[in-house]
């Protein structure tokens, strides 16, 4: 793990990169990284996340800045701007059931090719997918997802990069941390090693590549 300044962390991310971003309606989203992506004018990003929050909040800021080429998300209902860009065809939005989305990401991070889920069988979600029967029940084969970068927001990070999370700000964060080539973390507090008890570490330090310094 290396510590890195905010601007340098975002400078590593090229236009066209795929990003997994933590957060649920903006709660648990690394806002400083999102703000810096907008400030540096990144373009053609593919974002994989639960939702696009609201205009001006979390991933909604990237939508407002027209930074996205594609969004793979479960919900855009509270962001009219995302819906507008989807209807206009300027942003490609792939809607995925929430439980399927998080399991596809988990599969990507856990070395699996995909998962079998009953969710979506017989609905429009099934289109173009393989249906597989196991013990008399039907499932869809949903393939694994990975990204170039995971942008994670933690509550505590220690000097080695062990992470813990706060309440409902956990959501996608520990799962995306497993599923990207480069893992970049912001934390509310950066604390000495040992302050997060071993049992309370949720994301182990060895998978964190960069910890953004607090100012």
């Amino acid at each position: 793990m290396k510590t890195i300044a905010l601007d340098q962390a975002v400078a590593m991310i090229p236009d066209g990169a795929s990003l997994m971003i933590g957060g649920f309606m903006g709660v648990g989203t690394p806002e400083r990284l999102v703000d810096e992506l907008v400030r540096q004018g990144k373009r053609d990003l593919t974002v994989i996340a639960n939702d696009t929050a609201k205009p001006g909040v979390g991933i909604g800021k990237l939508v407002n800045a027209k930074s996205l080429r594609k969004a793979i998300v479960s919900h855009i209902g509270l962001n009219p701007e995302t819906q507008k860009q989807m209807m206009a065809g300027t942003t490609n939005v792939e809607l995925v059931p929430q439980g399927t989305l998080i399991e596809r990401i988990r599969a990507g991070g856990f070395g699996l090719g995909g998962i079998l889920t009953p969710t979506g069988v017989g609905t429009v979600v099934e289109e173009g997918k393989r249906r597989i029967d196991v013990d008399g029940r039907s499932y869809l084969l949903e393939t694994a997802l990975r990204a170039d970068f995971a942008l994670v927001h933690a509550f505590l990070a220690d000097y080695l990069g062990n992470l813990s999370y706060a309440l409902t700000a956990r959501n996608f964060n520990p799962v995306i941390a497993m599923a990207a080539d480069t893992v970049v973390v912001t934390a509310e507090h950066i604390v000495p090693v040992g302050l997060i008890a071993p049992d309370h570490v949720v994301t182990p330090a060895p998978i964190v590549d960069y910890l953004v310094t607090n100012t």
Partner: protein
Amino acid sequence: MDAQTIIAKRIAQELRTGMLVNLGIGIPTLVANYLPPGVNVFFQSENGLVGTGPVPEEGMAHPTLTDAGGQPVTALPGACTFDSAVSFGLIRGGHLDMTVLGGLQVDKQGRLANWMIPGKMVPGMGGAMDLVSGAKRVVVAMQHTAKGKPKIVKECSLPLTSVRPVDLVVTELAVISFPDNRATLVETAPGVSVADVVKNTEAELVVPPQVAQMAI
């Protein structure tokens, strides 16, 4: 009593102590306000919380204690938090006793459409498809009609949320269940006749000789 209150009060009667329950946005959220005395359930918010409590008092909101709509909630004693994979493991893995969701249409067999109106409203399915596929019991809370048109229809014209039929539909007019995949009238609301319900329902409704009245 307004339509939403009738629906929420009636659904609250389905709750039993110890159940794990997920309430959707809108009318379903109101169900928590009418929990019968002595009944204690665990409410799940699918963003990663079991033990969801009421909306906090003014000035007491915490930025990382929110519901699935991103709105501030409280956590009751014994609450716990977890990531989204665990949250949907609870939902899909058969651990969730009941889910209450809104509906746009329900067909004659009880199949629900509630996540999009093509060309008009495409909010995304969020957790709805997992909830309907995975919960032990699925209860739909919705108004009986929309702009005078029945919402309980022969065939859904809107895309289905799941092919798994729901267990119960509660409206301001009636309670309807789906034994043998056939829409069946269980109860009528106070002051509502069987004929009123039939008139406002497009799907063929099985009407037993005795239909109880909602005790709300």
